[in-house]
């Protein structure tokens, strides 16, 4: 059970994590402290682990920067529920282990401060006593989320115990 943080349409990656911080901040706590800085100055201080972001269309459009995902993950955000996601953001989200759910009906019904619960195994989210089904994630996507991201997931799948960190820039 978490609290809803509700935002509108077209929130881009710069509003989620500003470009000016991309090369200067490296530590998870520093990165989390800047989450949504230019969208909602209260968020980083007030959000609690388990909270959920609910947003309109095209959440995360723009840059391929992965901190726009990891800043929320480090903050302990459980999921982002949106009407739609920027294409690269969606891939970065799953590959970095952040649950992203497309469910326009729930977005329309949600208000900031509502209690929300996400039942992943049954692909349904509960909000104000109502249930909203969402398209199920594939077993692979679920596996990636459970493992904490794409690279750890592949290691697990292939039975590899290496823990060497893998860092990559975006694709072209």
């Amino acid at each position: 059970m978490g609290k809803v943080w509700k935002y509108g349409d077209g929130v881009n990656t710069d509003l989620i994590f500003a470009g000016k911080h991309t090369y200067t901040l490296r530590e998870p706590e520093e990165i989390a402290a800047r989450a949504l800085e230019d969208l909602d100055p209260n968020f980083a201080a007030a959000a609690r682990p388990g909270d959920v972001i609910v947003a309109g269309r095209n959440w995360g459009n723009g840059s391929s920067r992965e901190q726009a995902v990891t800043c929320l993950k480090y903050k302990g955000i459980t999921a982002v529920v949106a009407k739609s996601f920027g294409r690269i953001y969606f891939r970065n989200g799953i590959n970095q282990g952040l649950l992203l759910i497309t469910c326009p009906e729930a977005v329309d019904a949600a208000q900031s401060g509502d209690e929300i619960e996400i039942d992943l195994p049954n692909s349904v989210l509960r909000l104000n006593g109502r249930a909203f089904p969402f398209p199920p994630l594939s077993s692979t996507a679920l596996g990636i989320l459970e493992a904490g991201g794409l690279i750890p997931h592949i290691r697990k799948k292939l039975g590899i115990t290496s823990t060497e960190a893998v860092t990559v820039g975006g694709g072209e």
Partner: protein
Amino acid sequence: MGYTFAEKALARAAGLPTAVAGQVVDARPDIALSHDNTAAIAKIFRAIGVERVAIPEKMAITLDHAAPAPTPRHALNHAEIREFVKEQGIKYLFEVGRGICHQVFSEEAIILPGQLILGSDSHTPHFGWMGAFGAGVGRSEMAAIWATGELWLRVPESIRVIVTGKLGRGVTSKDLCLAIIGRFGADGGLYKSVELSGPAIEAMSLESRMVIPNMMAEFGVKNACLPPDEKVFEYLAKRTSNSKSQTPKTKTEIESNAIHPDADARYENEYTVDADSVELTVACPHTVDNARPLREVKGTPIHQAFIGTCTNGRLEDIAAAAEIVQGKRVANGCRLLVIPASSEVMMDALRLGHLQTLMEAGAVIGTPGCGPCMGNHMGVLAPGEVCLSTANRNFRGRMGQTDAEIYLASPAVVAASAVAGMIADPREVGG
């Protein structure tokens, strides 16, 4: 309710009976494309902790982005790739000078209609020209594909664009694409599968069609596709028969694997574009959707004219340029670079006399490959210079210099402008 091209193609690639937009599937690509970035991906692959790639027979690599190597660092990169290919027994490696990945894989017919190709290159939607599903992925994702043979993909929603009528005199598929991107914006097709069809596209040569899904990467799409027809099946049948690495396939075999959307498939949007109303179009600095009619930018002085790239470096592009510069000279203070998209294009252009015509007019011919498209070598710009290019992307700094300006247009416009020393209308320069 019927299914779109994307729903059918990704269901097939995932081994599922059906799939719908929004669903996430585990897709197994028929071909995994990489290029000069292969060595960087190999480092990620090794860091995962895997010894052998899972799909050596599906991996295809070209050395094209900085080829031949302009610096020792680039040479080392190529050497590492060759070593990796040998060590892992990877099936396809196309060496320096063979050409650009998207053009070479099309010529070699290593991908066919209805198949899935994933590439660590943002213009992988290119293969939609033949009705294949092509999409770009990140480097760690490509390493994941090598390790496991599969990648999760979200089935995209689809947009249909119907191009009615007929393109006017001198107006090309490049102008059509720039006009579409200019009208709907660089995110007009964001994350979508864009299906383009209609009489104006049917009437086009295959080479002109190849421009379209390639350019749609600049529309934000996940993939774009055209309906494959007789011309496509015939081209590919001939190619598989001539290829050393492929098993020959008949036209009927290739056609039987093609995917067509159902008549009652669900589209998020449907647009109609009237080909007759498309003007000669130029994308101005520094975004592709900053597209304007040629007549508004005519007379802009240029320092360099570049004909080439995976977008417009094919035989008909070079032929169009040769026809325009025949018996004329490139203007003083301007240089014309022509870089064929592949060795095959180059040999055909040589045989037909186009290269001689171009050189007589003062053009410089480069080794088949990407050339200066992304600022690596063979024609990068100086500060303050202006380049008119046939490429697909004009972002600030793309050709190696932040304070340079890049305009994009069709090969005929670029050739006419080289002769004029400024952006010009090929219909006025005369053929």
